[in-house]
């Protein structure tokens, strides 16, 4: 497809006549961009076939009735919004994503600072240990968490009983179960924040700290006026990525609670799975999962706008 052996020959042969040179150069550029396009073709086909087309297909599906025989417009969306379960889903999805991302960002920030304090040669082993939660496939580690939350012979309850506290029905009561799903997500996602922040911390020039020390800045001032502004970009990107992934999370809730008790831990993804795949109401499931998109696009718009503005400020 792109052996390209004639390209340099063309370049060399184009020297004699100026007109001929221009046309050869043009042909060269054209050929170059044709090859470039061909190289991108597999990527485009993949994205169009399995991302863009399904996304539009989802919009179409969401406007059909359950048997997919009649067009109902926005009926499914209206139906969902009126349903109490779905209102819980919206609330829980936002609560889950926002709380988990904030917790991950904070703990990750603390961890990155602690790592930054210790000498570089020791960081590798500590980082390796802290990355373990992130390395194990999430679906599998959630199984372990489930077993630890088990009501009858739970590891956590055993510890609680040992210290004289009563057993806690971890996954049996709505708010506690919500807390558990968030805990697992924080446990899984914090290492990612840590390594991103650690890289950002290392990229802050040491002179800035020296300059601020000469100006008499204390540790808190250094944090707020040097470290955080310098890390703003990377914090924004990491939070955006994590927000998308957390918002779209499926594994934790599906395995830990399957949405129960009383549908209090359902998020968009698990509810769409239950409605669309398990109950076979594909249009309703598609409508449910489409609710994710505007929220994600909204978040992405704001974070990316902040990032580009900041990059321009630096460039100016």
């Amino acid at each position, binding site marked *: 497809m792109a052996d390209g052996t004639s390209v*340099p020959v063309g370049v060399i042969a184009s020297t004699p006549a100026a007109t001929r040179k221009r046309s050869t150069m043009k042909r060269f550029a054209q050929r170059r*961009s044709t*090859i*470039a396009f061909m*190289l*991108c073709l*597999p*990527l*485009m086909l*993949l*994205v169009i076939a399995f*991302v863009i087309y*399904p*996304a539009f*297909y989802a919009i179409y599906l969401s406007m059909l009735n359950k048997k997919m025989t009649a067009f109902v417009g926005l009926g499914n969306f209206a139906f969902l919004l009126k349903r109490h379960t779905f209102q819980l889903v919206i609330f829980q999805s936002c609560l889950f994503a926002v709380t988990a991302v904030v917790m991950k960002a904070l703990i990750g920030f*603390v*961890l990155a600072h602690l*790592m930054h304090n*210790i000498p570089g040669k020791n960081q590798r082993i*500590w980082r*390796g*240990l*802290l*990355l*373990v*939660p992130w*390395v194990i*496939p*999430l*679906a*599998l*580690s959630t*199984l*372990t*968490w489930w*077993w*630890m939350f088990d009501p009858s*012979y*739970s*590891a956590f309850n*055993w*510890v609680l009983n040992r210290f004289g506290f009563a057993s806690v029905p971890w996954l049996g009561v709505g708010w506690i179960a919500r807390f558990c799903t968030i805990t697992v997500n924080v446990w899984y996602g914090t290492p990612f924040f840590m390594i*991103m922040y650690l*890289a*950002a911390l290392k990229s802050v020039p040491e002179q800035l700290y020296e300059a601020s020390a000469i100006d008499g800045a204390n540790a808190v001032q250094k944090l707020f006026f040097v470290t955080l502004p310098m890390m703003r*970009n*990377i914090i924004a990107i990491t939070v955006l*990525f994590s927000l*998308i992934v957390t*918002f*779209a*999370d*499926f594994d934790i809730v599906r*395995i830990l609670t399957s949405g129960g008790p009383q549908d209090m831990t359902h998020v968009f993804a698990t509810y*769409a*799975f239950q409605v*669309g795949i398990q109950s076979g109401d594909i249009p309703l499931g598609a409508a449910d*999962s*489409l609710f*994710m998109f505007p929220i994600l696009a909204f978040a992405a718009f704001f974070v990316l706008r902040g990032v580009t503005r900041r990059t321009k400020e630096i460039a100016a």
Partner: protein
Amino acid sequence: MSATTMNGAAGRRAVRHKSLHRQRTWALWGSYIALAIFVVIFLVPPFYTVMTSLKSSAEISAQSGSPWIVHHPTLENFWYLITYPNFQTYYLNSVIVTVLTVAVSMVISVLAAFSLARMGFKGSQTLSTGVFLTYLIPPSLLFIPLFQIIGMIGLINSFWCLVLLYPTLAVPFCTWIMIGYFSSIPKELDEAALIDGAGYMQMLFRIFIPVAMPGLIAATIFAFTVSWGSFLYPLAYLYTSNQMVLTVGIVSDLIRGDVFQWGKIMAANLLASLPPIIIYAFLMDYYVAGLTAGATKG
């Protein structure tokens, strides 16, 4: 007199130096202690997985003593799984799907990244932004329409559908990593190659891929991680145990109704986590560098 003042100043400096030094030492030890606490908390679930996997079913159902330690360690769970045909099938399916996914994803993303970073064509800028934006459409939004599409293609309940779908999860990020690495290669290098008579493919294989090897490793690990650990697509599209991959297989095969064979589940959990753990143990530095390179540069 001047000597005494000088002495005094030197003494003060020494004292301050000493206190600063002591402060640093305290900060260092404080960091180590805090990190140790975090490590212990973070490693509780893996530790518990290992402990449970070494327990016999009898010991688990007896429910006596501390659940945190194993009283009579046994390898019977591991032995059961290794000789259990279904588990072998899941493992084999996972390996096939992952190897193919990684191969397909890497070919697609290396070619595209080379083209986007170096050659360019009308609209290539839009395409690279567009690739990045596919992250706004997560799999949990796509799995329902894809259920219909996979059904139309006739790949429902066949692990081949995963080979088609997993690349969509891996390719955008792999392309992004590779674009970053490729564009950091000096332009003089490919001009020199062109003058020496190399074609684009030669340029890619002789110069770009060897130079960007760390990025290639990072992207490969990412593709591997995604396809080894994904749960939603196989759960939605695979039903029979001869087609299942590890994540779904463990969840649906070893949990039958209300009977939880926790020892076996945890042993399977460990066996399935082994490949990622081994890969990360050796290649983590590349992966971390690849992940953070793009973000810190931007």
